[in-house]
């Protein structure tokens, strides 16, 4: 088991003929992801790596059964691409694009809420259920199939954590990047629920960072609803106020969203918070030992 995606997930690529889209389509195919269709307006009828390209998502879903889509279109068009996917009835929408204007995402967020679908991202490395399916840009080979679930706002920091886990013999059930933007689709809370219910996940890692209150909201769910061990790391203890630390969402503003507050709230709820990012793997190992 894994959450959201598995070996049966049939995937569409929006923006398949762009540089990014084409490169990662090949990477995903190599990893074993079942990519069944692509979309680029005006290029309908072409194909890439044997995958048919359609003009619109509607055309693609009329022709193929599609469970998920990966969006690789430029920021100015990405909000539209998400809406197009949702309107066409695709259940899992993964938006890799970085740099979508926040006001566009407000509309998208509220539209998605009214539809029977979920959005991962934007500004996410994607989602991977190791050995089954990868929808994203992460290096697949560092992952191992296993029982740790990872939820992260970051890209390479997640690879770091995955690497620590894998090297210590702990594989992952599903690793999901919720995205580094101020407004994203699925949040920690939604995914904690899924992992709690997932039979093959026995521990969960949250990789948070400064900005917003997503981690604080996660805690509200954790307390009282979850039995599986939860380990958290919050990046940005040394980040200054008022500066955007790479991710659009990683900013402490108006005295809110700093790492110390997040760590305090998490610890008060009984979550193991790791201070040294080099020791996240060890902390997970320990948390699982305690439980077993």
């Amino acid at each position, binding site marked *: 088991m894994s959450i959201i995606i598995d070996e049966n997930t049939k995937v569409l690529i929006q923006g398949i003929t762009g540089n990014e889209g084409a490169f990662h389509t090949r990477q995903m195919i190599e990893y074993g992801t079942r990519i069944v269709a692509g979309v680029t307006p005006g290029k309908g009828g072409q194909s890439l790596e044997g995958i048919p390209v359609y003009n619109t998502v509607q055309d693609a879903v009329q022709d193929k059964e599609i469970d998920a889509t990966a969006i690789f279109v430029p*920021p*100015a068009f990405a909000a539209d691409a998400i809406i197009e996917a949702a309107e066409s009835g695709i259940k899992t929408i993964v938006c890799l694009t970085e*740099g*979508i*204007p*926040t*006001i566009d*995402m*407000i*509309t998208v*967020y*509220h539209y998605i809420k009214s539809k029977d679908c979920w959005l991962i991202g934007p500004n996410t*490395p994607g989602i991977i259920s190791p050995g089954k399916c990868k929808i994203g*840009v*992460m*290096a697949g080979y*560092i992952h191992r199939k296993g029982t740790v679930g990872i939820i*992260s*706002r*970051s*890209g*390479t*920091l*997640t*690879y*770091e954590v995955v*690497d620590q886990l894998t090297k210590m013999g702990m594989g992952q059930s599903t690793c999901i990047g919720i995205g*580094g933007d*101020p*407004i994203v689709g699925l949040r920690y809370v939604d995914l904690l629920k899924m992992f709690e219910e997932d039979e093959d996940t026995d521990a969960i890692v949250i*990789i948070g*960072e*400064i*900005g*917003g*209150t*997503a981690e604080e*909201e996660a805690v509200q769910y954790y307390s009282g609803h979850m039995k599986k061990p939860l380990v958290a*790391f919050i*990046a*940005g*203890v*040394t*980040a*200054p106020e008022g*500066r955007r*630390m*790479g*991710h*659009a*969402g*990683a900013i402490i*503003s*108006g*005295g809110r969203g700093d*790492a110390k507050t997040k760590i305090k709230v998490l610890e008060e709820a009984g979550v193991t918070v790791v*201070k*040294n*990012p*080099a020791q996240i793997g060890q902390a997970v190992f320990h948390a699982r030992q305690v439980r077993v």
Partner: protein
Amino acid sequence: MKIHEYQAKNLLKEYKIPIPKGSVARDVHESLKIWDDMTGIPVVVKAQVHSGGRGKAGGVRVINSREELKDYASSLIGSIIYTEQTGGDGKPVDCILIEEALDIKKELYLGFTIDRSHACISMIASAEGGVEIEKVALASPDRVVVQNIDPLLGLRDFQVIRTLLKTGMHIKIVRKIGAIANALYKLFIEKDCSLAEINPLVITEKDEIVALDAKINFDDNALFRHPDIASLRDYNQENPLEVEATRYNLNYIKLKGNVGCMVNGAGLAMATMDLIKFVGAEPANFLDVGGGATSKMIEEGLKILVSDRDVKVILINIFGGILRCDTLATGVVEAAQHLNIHMPIIIRLEGTNVEEGRRILAGSNLKFTVARDMGEAAEKVAEALRIRG
């Protein structure tokens, strides 16, 4: 992106929000010309810098005579202002705003911002203007009224009226401010703001409503569709190294420590800074070279780290995914040769083509310290600092 007060006020004016009469001067001559054109005495002079707390730092003054203006303008323009927010670096005063002084009866607060948790824009109002709204919210939360805005509905008149009535304002004032709130909301949406606040919004003795000070920040991600706004950026208010970094698409923020670091990925970069702190040192910067960094970008990044006089040790932490370790290694070797770097460089490489990358570093005849993981890298940083002492 931030802009100056006078630029923010120009935007308010464009949206028909009343602002005090005034103009910007870049030298004493211009200042005196503005004085000669003004009809009333006194005037208020305000240093235009990207920082709050100007008043305490001597950057705002009420001026009663032409002579007084001449003195103050000549001392202020070209100076550096040090506020609580700027700290030791200060901000240069390239221009000043000269405005009519108003008879103020009451100072209010009106602002719009993004509520990330509810994924919407929210309006914030308070009858306690003139101070930081965060401080008001902390001291007396019930005096700050917030209205979340449904993106389907936009800002509705009844919400504006209700919000302002809740602050305790009178219905007559409420109706006047309602129009300003609508205009500010329109500006927020149309210009892709991340913050738009009028603080204080004043009621004058003549019962006019005027935006006495304003702060407008913009969503960097949306600047591509607002060339007019992007052109307002004042690079002089930013750190020169940071400005240089943006030329190469590098995400760099100057800090106060002595360990320069270069990382791929924002999260890993922050974690690396935290790790440096964890072993007792201080990060000198945040530098994310991104997932698709080229050799050129790596070289420019290193150049910036070396230009920072505070930096004593450099830590490079790369987890190769799309950015392959051999590319990184080649870039670092070339850069180090060009730059003739004399300080210790600790490199931690992991991920795609890591073996090839380590081979390139080892074969370069340059002195890099290679660490196997983040923990070891941090220790070696601490050690290098002890040696350099």
